[in-house]
């Protein structure tokens, strides 16, 4: 499903060039659940942003379902993010003034979908938060907020869910709930890529990719 070929990403800070990614070659198959681990600054978030079409690589090739993503313009990338991908962030990134339901409806607004309300409620049901639909994020616990964010990622039935430290701000109980939701999604056939630095989260995946200084140093099956 995802074929990365020799991806590099260079940030220019004034005259200094910083190599965030140095030649990443990686393939992820449909239906896999993969975790990416590494120290902060290892480039794992940059990698996730490239896979998630939020950022463009400096060089290298990226095929998504056989289509060349590096040739897509901004509008096509936005459509990719809207229809094919779902993002889950460490800081939830919910709109604080909108209800849980409105937050989940957001991707449907940009896809111009019908029955926004019904589909958003279904997504909230999948993460067990239908009862909290009218609450604002400030009225929800951290775990509940993250579940709203997952519902938002799910609502357009994406093929791939990308999560950047989804349990980073949560206690272990709430974190375990979130992990089990990802496992459930994986069982339903959705491809999941999770960035984490917690080994007990990483080991729940089928496959663990370890990054150091923008390079993959190991790619192995979880035990």
């Amino acid at each position, binding site marked *: 499903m995802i074929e990365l070929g020799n991806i590099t990403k260079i940030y220019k800070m004034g005259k200094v060039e910083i190599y965030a990614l140095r030649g990443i070659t990686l393939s992820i198959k449909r239906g896999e659940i993969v975790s990416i681990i590494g120290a902060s600054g290892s480039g794992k978030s940059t990698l996730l*942003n490239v896979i*998630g079409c*939020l*950022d463009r690589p400096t060089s290298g090739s990226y095929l998504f379902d056989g289509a060349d993503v590096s040739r897509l313009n*901004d*509008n096509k990338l*936005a*459509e990719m*993010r*809207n*229809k094919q991908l779902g*993002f889950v*962030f460490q800081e939830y*990134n*919910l*709109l604080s*003034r*909108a209800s849980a339901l409105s937050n989940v409806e*957001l*991707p449907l*607004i*940009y*896809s*111009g979908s019908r029955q926004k309300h019904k589909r958003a409620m279904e997504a909230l049901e999948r993460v067990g938060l239908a009862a909290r639909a009218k609450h604002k994020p400030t009225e929800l616990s951290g775990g509940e907020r993250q579940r709203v964010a997952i519902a*938002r990622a799910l609502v*357009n039935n994406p093929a791939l869910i990308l999560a950047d430290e989804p349990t980073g701000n949560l206690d272990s109980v709430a974190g375990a709930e979130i992990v089990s939701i990802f496992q459930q999604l994986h069982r339903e056939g959705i491809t999941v890529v999770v960035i984490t630095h917690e080994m007990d989260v990483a080991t729940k995946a089928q496959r663990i990719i370890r990054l150091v200084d923008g390079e993959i140093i190991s790619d192995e099956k979880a035990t």
Partner: protein
Amino acid sequence: MKLIDFFVIAIRALSANKLRSSLTMLGIIIGVGAVITLMSVGRGAEASVTSTFEQMGTNVLNVVPRSPEVEGFAGLSPRFAAPTLTLDDAEALGHIRSAAAVLPVNENFVQVTADGESKTAMIHGSTPEYLEVYNHSLALGQFIVDRDVASRDRVAVLGSEVAEDLFGFDNPIEQRVKMKGQRFTVIGVLEPKGGAMMGVSLDNIVVTPITTFQTRLFPQRTASGEDAVASISIKVASADAIDGVTEDAEAILKKRHRIADDEKNDFAIVSQEQVLGFVTQVTGVFTIFLGAIASISLLVASIGIMNIMLVSVTERTREIGVRKAVGAKRRDILLQFLLEAAMLSFVGGGIGVTGGWVLSRLISRVDVGGMTIHAVVSPDIVILAISVSVFIGLASGIYPAMRAARLNPIDALHYG
């Protein structure tokens, strides 16, 4: 993305910051309100001046003395122009074929008293043609006749306002009024005409025979010692004849005043149209000037909108990042912020139009020295003001909106 969703997002964003939104709108409200009010007052002044001139009759030429030495309109001012016209001049002008009526008029202000009531009115000394040339009609009694003029009778015809103020509901006919210590008999009352000329109501008037005016009330003589006439109005039979009558009148007066062809005239012939053109030019400039002053407040308001939109974009950087991460395109973000700015200015413009309209109505009720300015809020002013305010909203919203749309999603997500 559907249009309705854009509106929902914009309304939610604006109502989330009610105080800020309403203060921003206040700028537009004041700006548009000021434009509407001032423009309509200007238009109203224009309209009332024009209608006054039209009431005085069209196809009328006015002959007045002028000072040969002084240029332009100033030469017509009584301060420079010595009296040069006489009743004989008027009589001679009456022989022009296309002149329907010739009317010598002297005017002044006079205090009129009757039964202890007193009123200052404009007094016209004139002849029987007065009614025809000035478009007046008689409500009661009779008007001055040739015999009154010939025998310098102390008779007076009162304007409706004078009659009402002095006699109330009593019939003024055959009553006495006193002017400059002399008794006059009231022989008629004019129909109310409405309108005002230079701040004086056209109904606050007394008409006497011109000869009475010249000899008993306000004697004034020309250089050659004859009784002077302040102006001679010539009613022309048809609009086509105006040029011909003007030429004939000039030739006749030049001959009578012994003015050679290369000398400057000691009189001027001014058509009603010329005066009207001059006045509307002045009031038109006045209107534009008022509008321009009001536009400055609109400009300030637009800067206010741009400022608030820039603040709003910065504040909501993360929101923009989230929207982009879930699939918002540049165009979606651009339209979202543009619509917010346009709604601010459109709603503000609407309220401003209403406020300006109310203010114009109030101004129309205020009596300024006997004259009311009927402020006219015409549709073109409203359309102009609203489209200008929406244009301002869009123009001042486009830059902040473009900044929002151009944000890189990752930078936006990690902002702050």
